[in-house]
């Protein structure tokens, strides 16, 4: 579903060129959950930014559902974000002036889709993430975990082929973190969306089908986890081996 081949990205800091991604290749299947783990500065967020088109890769190709993304086209990047990719952020990034319902309905509004069908979809998603009773609240009236649940509902609104989650549990307590993982995993699977998640937490990484360890801008190694939440030892072992 998602195929990344030889993706490279570097940043210029003064007169120095700092490579972040160095020919990275990766695949994510439909309904599959892949976790990226790696040290700070290894390029995890840059990878997600490049896939979603909010940052431009220097080299390499990204194809989604068999179609190679043309990153040079602003219109195509916008289309990609509207219809094929959903994003979940560490800091939730809900629009503070919109209610929970309006935040979830925002992707439809952006595409100019109105009517009963999107409204029903929004209600279903809110019920699914357990936020149906808070639909008319503003973000500041919610807890961090609740905001993240709304953010997940928003990301899934357009039934994206790929869900990108950047440390979605990084700013909530462990108990809420587990609930978020549960909802993220189950809803993505039900929607048959590929899920690519960045995390520093082995406990949350253990929910994945596959874990990719990112080091020096490349996938240093992969671990097939098959969603075994209790199998944490192999993850810790890999982290130690790779000095992550």
């Amino acid at each position, binding site marked *: 579903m998602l195929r990344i081949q030889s993706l490279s990205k570097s940043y210029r800091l003064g007169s120095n060129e700092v490579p972040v991604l160095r020919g990275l290749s990766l695949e994510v299947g439909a309904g599959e959950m892949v976790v990226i783990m790696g040290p700070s500065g290894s390029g995890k*967020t*840059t990878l997600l*930014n490049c896939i*979603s088109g*909010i*940052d431009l890769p220097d080299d390499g190709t990204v194809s989604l559902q068999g179609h190679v993304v043309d990153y040079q086209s*602003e*219109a195509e990047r*916008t*289309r990609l*974000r*509207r*219809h094929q990719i959903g*994003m979940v*952020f*560490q*800091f*939730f*990034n*809900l*629009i*503070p*002036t*919109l209610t929970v319902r*309006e935040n979830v309905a*925002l*992707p439809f*509004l*952006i*595409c*100019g889709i*109105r009517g009963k069908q999107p409204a029903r979809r929004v209600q279903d998603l809110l019920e699914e993430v357990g936020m149906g009773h808070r639909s008319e609240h*503003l*973000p*500041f009236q919610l807890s961090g975990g609740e905001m993240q649940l709304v953010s997940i509902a*928003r990301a899934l609104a357009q039934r994206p082929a790929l869900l990108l989650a950047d440390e979605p549990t990084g*700013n909530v307590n462990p108990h809420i973190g587990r609930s978020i993982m549960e909802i993220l995993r189950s809803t993505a699977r039900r929607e048959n969306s590929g899920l690519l998640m960045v995390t520093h937490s082995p406990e949350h990484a253990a929910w994945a089908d596959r874990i990719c360890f990112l080091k020096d801008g490349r996938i240093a190694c992969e671990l097939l986890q098959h969603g075994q939440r209790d199998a944490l030892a192999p993850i810790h072992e890999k982290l130690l081996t790779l000095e992550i």
Partner: protein
Amino acid sequence: MNARLAVHMAWRSLRHHRTVAIATVLGVALGMAVVAAILIVDYHSTQARIQTRLTENPLPMIDPLFPSESKAPLHILHVSFERAGQVLPGPQGGFPSQEGQVNHDLSAESPPTRRGEEDYQAMRLAVRLASLLAFSVGAVIVFYTMRFSVTSRSREFCLLLCLGERRANVVLSLLLETLALGLLGTLLGLLAAFPAALALIRSGISTTGRVPVGGFAVPWAELLVMAGLSVLIALLAVAGPARAIVKMNIVDVLQPRFLTGDVNEGSLKIRGFSLLFPPLLAAAYLALRPFLLSWLSVVQFFLFESVYVLVLTLAGLWWMTPLLRGLIGLFETALKPLLPLEALLAGRRMRLTSQKLVFTLAGVALVFSLLTALHDITRSLKHEIQRWSEDALSPYTFFKKNEWSAINPDLFSKIVAANNIYFFRLSDKVRGEFPIRLIASADVNPFLQAQGKPPLLPGTVMVSHTMAARFGLKLGDSVIVENDRAKYRFPVIDVTDKVGFFAEDDQYVDLKSYLLFSDGNPLFVDNLEKTLGRFGIIRPKQDGESPSRQAVAELKPFYTMTKEGHALKRWQQAEIDRDFLIFDFILAMTIVLAAVGVTNSILIQVHTRGREFSVLRTLGVSRLQTMRLLLVEGGINGLVAALLALFLGNAMGAISVSFLDRFTLFEYEFVFSVRDSLWISLLAVVTCSVAALYPAFVANRISSAESLHYE
């Protein structure tokens, strides 16, 4: 205190927020430039001697009550007025009037204020107040920018405090930053003021409506005071932010930064009681108004009322956040079918942060209120000119008798009859406090009869509207003329401009003031009556027609045409347009300032909302939609400001027109114009939308990847 670090911090901040700093300097500079240019033009206008506009030679002074041969001094002349039924009229329409201050038995020995000076002083006052408004808008921009500067740098300040920096030093850096902006803006404003003032003066523009001539006079002392004030205002802008720094809670500020957008519980509160304040204040004022009318002079009352309306509106704006929210909500709903996404995002943000919009909206609303009020005044003045011109100018052609020719009465009558015109012979006009002119009763009475008016007989008088306004004269009152031999009473049979005016070289107010007597009065028979026929005016017998060229040609052996009424009417209207050019200059500059203010405020929001824009981009919002979003915000700003300006501007306009009606001798009438109001509202919306263009471009250049980075 580490002054070096403070300077470094200020410099870094100015460099980092370059666009905002430029907008602030521009705000100060434009405000200062307008005030300084107006001060120079005003000083020049009042210093320079008056140049009259007509080129004819002034008429000789004639003593109306003594034979022309007599050289006796005017030691017993006394002219006064007697009210009909001895009932003294009070102020009309609830507004103070000059009439109330005038002695009801006014005589030539106790004349009122110099004629015409009130109009010029009123205009000077209005020009100065208008230029101060531009200055105030500049001040608002500086105040707003400093608030932003502190908010956006609060984390930086708190980190410095954590590292051991003193709060006083942080305040000092802000002080230096503002001082730099204030000094630069003031200097640029002063430099720009000189060429601007010179250009205005060379274009013949003045603050008094008179055409100044001569050199270039500069009020250095006033300019220095204003420059000092400009820098001081800039420094005062630090007061609020400095207090914020002193109270800043380091722990709160250094919390991880979420996308909160300044929305909190306070944004949802509706302050019920605050809604009562504006109506209560308005009611209290209405109760006090009659007492204020009697306590205060006309000028004091006008100033008080203007300031009261202004303060009431701005206070209402501040208190009545729900009203503001309601207005924004109204426009949001109206826009929703057209631009649902933009209307929702822009409208909701503006509603929830409406208290933060007050500064911007107040500035823009003030500017367009002034524009509205000024339009009300000019429209009223033009209406007055138009009305007077229709009566006194348009139907007439003005002639002066040829010195060398003797009139053949038969031939003359035939010419008048053949051309179907009225010919009115006029005498010289006596200058002074009581301008007197004679008209041949044989000429004027057929016209008066045709108009259904009583004839002008030797024992009666007709009075022009301006003359009547000067002394509060009405139909049925009497003009009493007294000399050492007798006392003569002349009942006023008509107050009209339809007859008796002659286009001469004099001040506008004087031209329109006259007492019109007929020939045959014993008082004038030996002097003024001897000049009867020196001037002549013709008008067609059919209303709406122009005197034919043939009539003018046939009268040429006896009379030479000096002016044509309709041409004079056009000239008068052009003069009014020219007199008000100074306001156009101020308003144009103030609108630019308002645009700079809106640009600055939206730009500040774009900087603080970078993360929000980036999130929207990741959700699929296109660059075009981002631009439209900000343009809609600008447009809603403009719409709300236009609505407020419509109310405030017309209220100010009505007050000003009433004031002018009482304070000057012209008959002003407030007329609400739907067309003008719509045009001004459109201008407000376009200005605010155009002002949002640059911030929209900046928003489009924001890097989503950078903005979404955690810290």
